[in-house]
């Protein structure tokens, strides 16, 4: 369609209302760029969100947008996608929106494999409501609602996604342009539910919670960037790698040059390794961790539908039922 659009064409004219310095800005930037790069069309793209700081996102993207209610965006987006499977539908959600109140819709959307690109901005806190601990907050997090430290065991978005049958899980860091661009493009291309967890810095209520691995200076050692078919190497000179310990069924870090166990080659379809990668904390696994395509729900829905959701026959044809009679 007409000429190539740029990131600017996807930025809306709305004033942005996040705190200065919030990680959401960086994500927005990467998103508008990714939209341009994948050749999306504003008219054919919709962003659906719940409630939270993250959920303000649709206002700032120059596409169709629906800022709905807390936790329900996946359900609403499912209806939208069924009504118009041709649309590119993105869901933007936070760790509270997606994993707390919205947990049920998320797992059912993933197991059905509805063709939604779900971006989960995980800042490990409820930002909009002023900083209570969230389902991803680490044990001991002190917040207004957990003054002595939280003791709810956090949930892992990735483990949950795979546990409920999700077919695509990726991870990126808000300010890592390259990594984020890559997963956004992959998510866009995936035919089914694509869940992308983005580590997002809430500078007001949970500042630097990811600093241990987002710091650029030490990124070599703290981040593992995955690419399908490539060996799992990290370190300044890719001197270390990941291997599978098949006595203890865990991943281990090995010296790339001397390792006796073979360095794993990233296979996006390997669910066992994907789960171990998700749990890895040093280095943190980034990129497309798991991708194992299956038929998208809207495809099955329309295929199972006797007329692909078209009106083939009038109600007049069946209104009389099997038995009718004439009264003169």
């Amino acid at each position, binding site marked *: 369609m007409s000429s190539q659009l740029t990131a600017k064409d996807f930025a809306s004219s709305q004033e942005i209302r996040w705190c200065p310095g919030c990680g959401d800005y960086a994500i927005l930037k990467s998103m508008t760029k990714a939209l341009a790069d994948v050749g999306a069309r504003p*008219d054919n793209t919709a962003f659906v969100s719940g409630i939270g700081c993250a959920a303000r996102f649709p206002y700032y993207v120059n596409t169709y947008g629906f800022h709905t*209610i807390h936790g329900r965006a996946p359900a609403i987006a499912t209806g939208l*996608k069924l009504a118009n499977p041709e649309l590119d539908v993105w869901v933007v959600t936070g760790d509270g929106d997606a994993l707390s109140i919205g947990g049920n819709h998320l797992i*059912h959307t993933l197991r059905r494999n509805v063709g939604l690109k779900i971006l989960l901005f995980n800042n490990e806190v409820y930002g909009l409501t002023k900083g209570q601990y969230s389902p991803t907050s680490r044990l001991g997090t002190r917040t207004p609602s957990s003054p002595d430290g939280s003791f709810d065991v956090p949930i892992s978005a990735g483990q949950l996604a795979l546990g409920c049958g999700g077919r695509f899980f990726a991870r990126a860091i808000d300010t890592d342009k390259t990594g984020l661009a890559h997963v956004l493009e992959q998510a866009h291309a995936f035919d089914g539910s694509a869940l992308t967890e983005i580590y997002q810095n809430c500078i007001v209520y949970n500042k630097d919670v990811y600093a241990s691995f987002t710091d650029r200076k030490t990124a070599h050692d703290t981040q593992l960037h995955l690419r399908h078919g490539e060996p799992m190497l990290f370190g300044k000179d890719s001197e270390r790698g990941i291997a599978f310990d098949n006595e203890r069924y865990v991943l281990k870090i090995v010296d790339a040059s001397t390792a006796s166990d073979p360095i794993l080659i990233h296979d996006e379809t390997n669910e066992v390794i994907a789960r171990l990668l998700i749990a890895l904390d040093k280095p943190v696994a980034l990129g497309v961790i798991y991708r194992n395509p299956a038929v998208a729900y809207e495809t099955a829905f329309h295929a199972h539908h*006797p007329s692909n*959701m078209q009106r083939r026959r009038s109600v007049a044809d069946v209104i009389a039922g099997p038995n009718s009679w004439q009264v003169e």
Partner: protein
Amino acid sequence: MTKNPQLKSIVVRLAGDSGDGIQLMGSQFAVSTALSGSDFATFPDYPAEIRAPAGTTFGVSAYQINLGDDPITTPGDSPDVLVAFNPAALKVSLPMLHPGTLIIVNNDGFSARNLTKAGYDANPLDDDSLSEYTVVAADIGRLNLESVAEFGLSKSDGGQCKNFWALGLLFWMFDRSLDSAIGWLDRRLKNAPAMRDANVAALRAGHAYGETSELSAVEKVRVGEAQLEPGRYRSITGSEAMALGIAAAGELADRQVLFCSYPITPSSPLLHRLAKLGEHGVGTFQAEDEIAAVGAAIGASYGGMIGATSSSGPGIALKTEALGLAVSAELPLLVVNWQRGGPSTGLPTKTEQSDLYQAIYGRNGDTPIPVLAAASAGDCFDTAIEATRIALRHMTPVILLADGYLSNAAEPWRIPDLSDYAPIESHPVEASDSSDPQRLAFARDASSLGRAWVTPGMPDLVHRIGGLEKDLSSGHISYDPDNHQAMTDLRRKKLESVANFIPDQAMEFGDDKGDIVLVGWGSTRGPLYQAARRTGTSFIHIRYLNPLPKNLGELLSGFRSVVVAEMNDGQLSTVLRDKLGIQPTPLTKVTGQPFLISELVKAIEQERSKL
């Protein structure tokens, strides 16, 4: 039962265990009644359990049908014929009978075990406790098994045919053709020829039993033909009519319908029926819960299909937050509530009208939503179309109240001609010089205050919607105090504007002035109508509950006493006090059972004596 074979109307009640196939037998009898030309109304009444243990009183499943030539609008107060398959069925039905009722019992069901289970110390067939009735005790169990013996079925499969045996006997009594039932068996048991043959044999055997046995008490009954308006008729339940109405609404609007629901009694039959209307532009989505169901329906409406959802009270409660979103975002949505006995899980299989408060007032914020109610099984069709029309014209969710009684009850219905209905329209996107698509999406029709239905995918109309307050003219988020007042006013006026499009309230019966007017809504129309006729009382039945028809206040002011009859603790009375400032006399019944004509008549007479 009198021996006069030509009756104006007759009430038949079938009762037995949940596993006895009573509902099937009832519906087959209803089909044959319809084909015979009688008017009728039915009332299936079954237990909350899927299959309660055999023989218990709480496990009794019953089906009542009233048939005749008189306009029949209720399933009848008191049975003239009772078929009881076991002691429990007899026991729970006895209080409804009148002297002379013909009771046909299955002798074989009256085992010592079953008598104990039903709480009988002695067999009522053996003492004179049934002396005021005409009792016919037949060995239905044994006779049925004999009739199917040749088909080599297991004892349990063979025993299952006894409902068709009994149906055969009824067909003989009512002089009916066996064809409709045999046709049904042919279609239904296409893949189980032995069962098909056995059922047909049982049916014929029951019929033959009537013909040949010495049942002196049973004479053939001939019921007059109905005085129905000319036209083509069918038998229909509320669920079926609602499903057809929703599909028809989609057709009239030239839009696909996405019906999103989570099963719940008595709402599920609508989902089941719509799941089969795929060729008619209807898709069904069984969601993970009610919130997802209404969410997906809202998403579908946002995407340009007609989003619809259905549930009953507890499920509607879960949807209320999302209904607020639909109001705020101004999206069309059809919400059907099949009411049942509350509070909480309450009496899930019993009928009630106790969700009117919830429909009109049950949301946070000032969040007006139009509310309609269907008055009969067939009326579900028209009301679904009307509700959808309002939803699209005003860009708003609409709540349509039905109930458990309507869901299951059947009645003859004159098949409408779709071409008699006006197309359903929404306010189109208007050409304008505004370069702001947000404004275009929130441009309103002056009379309905409905906004344009702009949906993702439309070129050059990219805009954003949501649940935060919006600027009245631009549609952008606004926290401005005066604008919030203006938007609150707008939402109120939008609701009020619906009244400009709906018909004036008509009298359902009687003069438009007088001492007493009986007022009702929803599924009670049948008994109210009969009670009004029998007592010569004026009668108004309200379909549009929010907003009320403009002339209603004036109409009611023509009467000294406004008696509001409803199956709840007085909810419409509240609405009339609120909206019209009148002081009605509530006539309430909260038993999970429809009104009897007799109790209404008594109440009206009492009210009259007070005036």
